[in-house]
């Protein structure tokens, strides 16, 4: 389902003026602290009434200042995971989790069990929020939003307080939600890696304005977007299809640039994937190297080079029909004589592509 947001709002000394459309799935909101991300989410949820604007989810208009339409918060059915957990202190964890479901036809015990299991909060069900750790609170808040059967998920840095292992469990779940329930998600994060996997659309906000917005593949593969996203987070997305699984736990996928070996991908052959390859994980080699521990050596052609403000250069590469990004030092670029049009090899370590960087795409997309 599509999400279309246009908002104008003024705080005492902050002006928000954003507009973006995302045709389907997950929209990632990036931006530095204080950029206005939470304000956007609040406006979509109805908690902030913007001075003007229009918010549409699928066919449903949630807010339209021109027609004086303003759906009450509780009728919007957004599952909002707040930046601060906001658990109900008088209810047990179980009561918190079940809170939203009662307004949506009751708790589905199967889903309840699945969410509880995924979030690892089974042992906490009878505790009060005051007796939870920071991360436990956040997990319960995620579960509470998920179990409310929302028609739109609003996630405001939901995983910031979680360890990587837990993150790795939650993200695939969100992915399934997006695909199976066709649930639009608006996701705020400081970590591109966390979101690249999920997002169809990336919106970058700076000081209350949209500075970049577009399909994830385009934005992430665009060297010009690097300053907004952060150097370490830059990286491109490759489309791939699972070919098969090997006995040693590795999986082989086909990309337009050739086959790649990845850590095990939990999907049957034929599944379409999207793989994020961080720019700093790519090494360029003029000759095809041998005797390397890196299993993936992809022939590429240099599309463009873009200087950063440090000693690095962002190199955009064409691998088959897809684009890759590599970050190298200016010295290497000079030493190796990298220029647009040059053919060379991109070396990608298999282990550098973690589970979090691989996302399955539904068959129908």
């Amino acid at each position, binding site marked *: 389902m599509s999400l279309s947001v246009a908002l104008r709002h003024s705080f005492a000394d902050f002006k928000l003026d954003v507009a973006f459309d995302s045709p389907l799935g997950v929209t990632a909101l990036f931006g530095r602290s204080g950029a206005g991300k939470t304000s956007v989410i609040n406006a979509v949820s*109805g908690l902030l009434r913007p001075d003007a604007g229009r918010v549409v989810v699928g066919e449903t208009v949630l807010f339209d200042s021109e027609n004086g339409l303003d759906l009450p918060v*509780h009728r919007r059915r957004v599952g909002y995971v707040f930046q601060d957990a*906001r658990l109900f202190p008088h209810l047990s964890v179980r009561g918190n989790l079940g809170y*939203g479901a009662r307004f949506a036809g009751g708790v589905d015990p199967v889903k309840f069990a699945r969410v509880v299991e995924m979030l690892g909060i089974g042992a906490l069900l009878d505790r009060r929020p005051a007796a939870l750790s920071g991360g436990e609170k956040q997990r319960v808040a995620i579960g509470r939003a998920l179990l*409310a059967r929302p028609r739109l998920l609003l996630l405001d840095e939901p995983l910031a307080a979680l360890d990587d292992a837990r993150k790795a469990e939650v993200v695939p779940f969100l992915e399934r939600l997006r695909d199976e329930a066709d649930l639009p998600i608006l996701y705020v994060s400081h970590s591109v890696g966390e979101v690249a996997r999920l997002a169809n659309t990336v919106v970058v906000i700076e000081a209350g304005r949209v500075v970049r917005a577009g399909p994830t593949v385009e934005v992430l593969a665009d060297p010009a977007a690097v300053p907004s996203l952060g150097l370490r987070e830059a990286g491109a997305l490759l489309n791939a299809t699972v070919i098969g699984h090997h006995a040693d736990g590795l999986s082989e996928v086909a990309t337009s640039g050739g086959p790649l070996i990845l850590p095990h991908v939990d999907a049957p052959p034929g599944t379409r994937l999207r793989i994020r390859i961080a720019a700093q994980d790519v090494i360029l080699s003029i000759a095809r190297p041998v005797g390397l521990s890196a299993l993936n050596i992809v022939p590429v052609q240099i599309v463009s080079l873009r200087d950063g403000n440090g000693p690095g250069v962002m190199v955009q590469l064409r691998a088959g029909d897809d684009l890759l990004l590599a970050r190298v030092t200016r010295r290497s670029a000079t030493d190796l004589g990298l220029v647009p049009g040059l053919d060379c090899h991109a070396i990608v370590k298999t282990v550098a592509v973690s589970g979090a960087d691989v996302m399955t795409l539904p068959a129908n997309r």
Partner: protein
Amino acid sequence: MIDALTPAEWQALNLSLRVSFWATLCSLPIGVFTAYALARWTFPGKAIVNGLVHLPLVLPPVVTGYMLLITFGPRGPIGSVLEAIGLPVAFRWSGAALAAAIMAFPLMVRAIRLSIEAVDPKLEQAAATLGASRAWVFATVTLPLVMPGILAGTILAFAKAMGEFGATITFVSNIPGQTQTLPTAIYAFLQIPGGEGAALRLVVIAVVVSMGALLVSEWVARRLAARVGS
């Protein structure tokens, strides 16, 4: 004090408890509603409502009783209607309860209002995003969080109702078995020569009962706090 209470004392105690109980119970929903309206809404005439609520506190109780008598007495504008529909309050224990409720109302409303104002609106917002309408938010989030305040308001109102005298005796007089509560009985004893001993007995009864209620309420409050806090 050690020997059992006399029938007359029993009667006064019984009546005081009944009056205070019903006064508190019946004014509770109205008190919660008023407190919520004053805490959360803005509406024209809010200042007037607020003023009216506080009026019984400001006026000498006799005046309140006098006004009640004129309004709710058998010949008063409301009282005659109540009389006609078979719900008379004047010179009945129900009238004593009405007087006690009105005198205790400002105390109850203030306590509850204060608690409502202390509830973090962020929690109510969270409930709304989860699909709870205003009424549900109130019932499932605000109300439970306000329980300590409601309890405080209730116990204040109960205590006030137990001690209410001026408005009661002016409005419903001091009819044994009907409107003679502990305070009016104490008054009656204090007005006759040699009645101090009997009055003291009643004072002790009133104190014991009220302190009992207070202890129970404190215990309940601690339980409530423990449920939320740990």
